[in-house]
């Protein structure tokens, strides 16, 4: 793959993500509306490209008369929060387990491998749904559940990469010069596997975003009235036969964010000649 094109992909992805972040932060200012305030006199107004639209509501309003643009932009906050939050938590769990297993080997490694196998055999969406159904839904609960279900790839990659470097000379010399084990893990191992972990992180962000959308769509994710894009699609489902845009827009927004994160991830992977599947593409 040509390096310039890789760089262009990476920059496009980064640009989209920055725009999404700006939209998320300034959602009120851009739309000029509150995403939660209802106006039952102005329900289901069409967006700007259709007849009878209201110039005050650029993308129209939803079934409760809430400004659609405001909700879409506010939804970007939730998507970014879920994606980044769940991935950070999952990273802490997975990287800790993976590095410990890979560095110490033996008994520790067997336990880590067992945990990874158990985690892999659990159906992600189903278990997440069941747990939310039992304990109730909130943003914090959804983030924690996603983190507890999406750490496996971090663990697998951290484990194999740690195994690959643990016998190298710089680790040995650190040990010989009397560095503590925790110093070696933090200062020698972790920085040297961080590149691969960043690529895994971008994969996990997209996974967390898509799983959250599924959970919210099935009514067991982010609770209303928070405008999660998955929830907006679920809420607009009854209207989709007459107003297809109401389910189309949040889906396109989701796709845009996921593609952007993937482009950034691919860029990091190709620039460092490595990617999360261990395959060349």
């Amino acid at each position, binding site marked *: *793959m*040509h390096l310039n094109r890789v760089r262009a992909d990476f920059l496009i992805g980064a640009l989209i993500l920055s725009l999404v972040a700006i939209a998320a932060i300034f959602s009120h200012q851009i739309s000029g509306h509150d995403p939660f305030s209802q106006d039952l006199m102005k329900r289901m107004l069409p967006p700007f490209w259709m007849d009878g639209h209201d110039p005050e509501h650029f993308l129209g309003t939803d079934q409760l008369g809430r400004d659609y643009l405001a909700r879409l932009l506010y939804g970007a906050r939730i998507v970014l929060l879920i994606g980044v939050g769940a991935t950070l938590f999952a990273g802490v769990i997975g990287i800790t387990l993976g590095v410990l297993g890979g560095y110490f080997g033996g008994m520790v490694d067997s336990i880590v491998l067992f945990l990874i196998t158990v985690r*892999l*055999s*659990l*159906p*992600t*969406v*189903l*278990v997440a*749904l*069941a747990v939310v*159904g*039992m*304990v*109730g839904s909130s943003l914090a609960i959804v983030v924690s559940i996603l983190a507890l279900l999406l750490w496996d790839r971090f663990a697998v990659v951290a484990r194999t990469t740690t195994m690959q470097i643990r016998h190298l000379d710089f680790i040995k010399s650190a040990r010989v010069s009397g560095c503590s084990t925790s110093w070696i893990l933090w200062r020698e191992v972790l920085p040297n596997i961080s590149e691969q972990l960043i690529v895994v992180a971008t994969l996990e962000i*997209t996974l967390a975003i*898509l799983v959250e*959308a*599924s959970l919210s*769509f*099935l*009514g*067991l994710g982010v609770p209303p009235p928070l405008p999660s894009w*998955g929830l907006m*699609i679920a809420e607009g*489902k009854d209207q*989709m*036969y007459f107003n*297809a845009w109401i*389910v*189309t827009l*949040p*889906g396109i927004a*989701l*796709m*845009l964010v*996921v*593609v952007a994160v*993937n482009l950034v991830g691919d860029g990091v992977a190709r620039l460092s000649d490595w990617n999360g*599947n261990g*395959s*060349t*593409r």
Partner: protein
Amino acid sequence: MSGDVATTIAGPEATQADIEQVRRAYGLDRPLAVQLADWAGHAVRGDFGQSFYFRKDVSSLIVERMPTTFRLGVFGMLVGLALALPLGILAALYEGRFLDRAIQLLISANQAVPSFWLALMLIIVFGVHLGWLPTTGADSWRHFIMPTLVLGLSVLPALARLARSGMIKALASDYVRTARAKGLSSFSIIVKHALRNAAIPIVAIAAVQFGNALGGSVVIESVFALHGVGHLAWESIIKSDVAVIQATVLMFSIIYVVITFISDVMNAMLDPRIRLS
């Protein structure tokens, strides 16, 4: 919806005394560990208890719903493979050129779309605007077209990527060069020599994806109102029907383990270098 099982079973108008009675009748007043051990003891004998919502044996409920889910999973997988292999091979043959680039873009876009949204878009286009296909139910094979397509597309990206990278590696190898030098036709080289070697990782991933697809049937079955195990799981979660939830999660986990094992065996058969020790 409430987290407390006894309260849910007793219903919205139950008094505190009713709830206590239900709790005792269902054995929910015992310590959690005892309940779990009791459940596991029965589960190994194939008895998953009673569903309080459906008023039926959990195992017979699952057996009843299984064919729909399995049909969806198998045909979805076949559709996924039927699309992924040609796309992956084509991309590999035109590596770095326009066709490769276009296919990769298609795969990335496909991967970025949640399957329930894709399902809704298909319903809007083929079910509502064109009116070609029924949107809900499982009465005929035509009801399965959209669900299988959605499931197939959800497993496509990983398979196609692997097919592409495997083929690129295989096409650059010595045995393909030898085959070319022997004067074999391109078709025979691609199918008999390159694809056979590229197939090994694809089989492994396809098995994992099949497990994921069955687990992910929760979403697709709900959208298309197919009454399979996935839909059953979702209903029982909404109704806090714990016996059914436990049984479905356990079943999907067991299926995953079995499928992974089968894929290991198949890999050993495909590749004589991998030996079962």
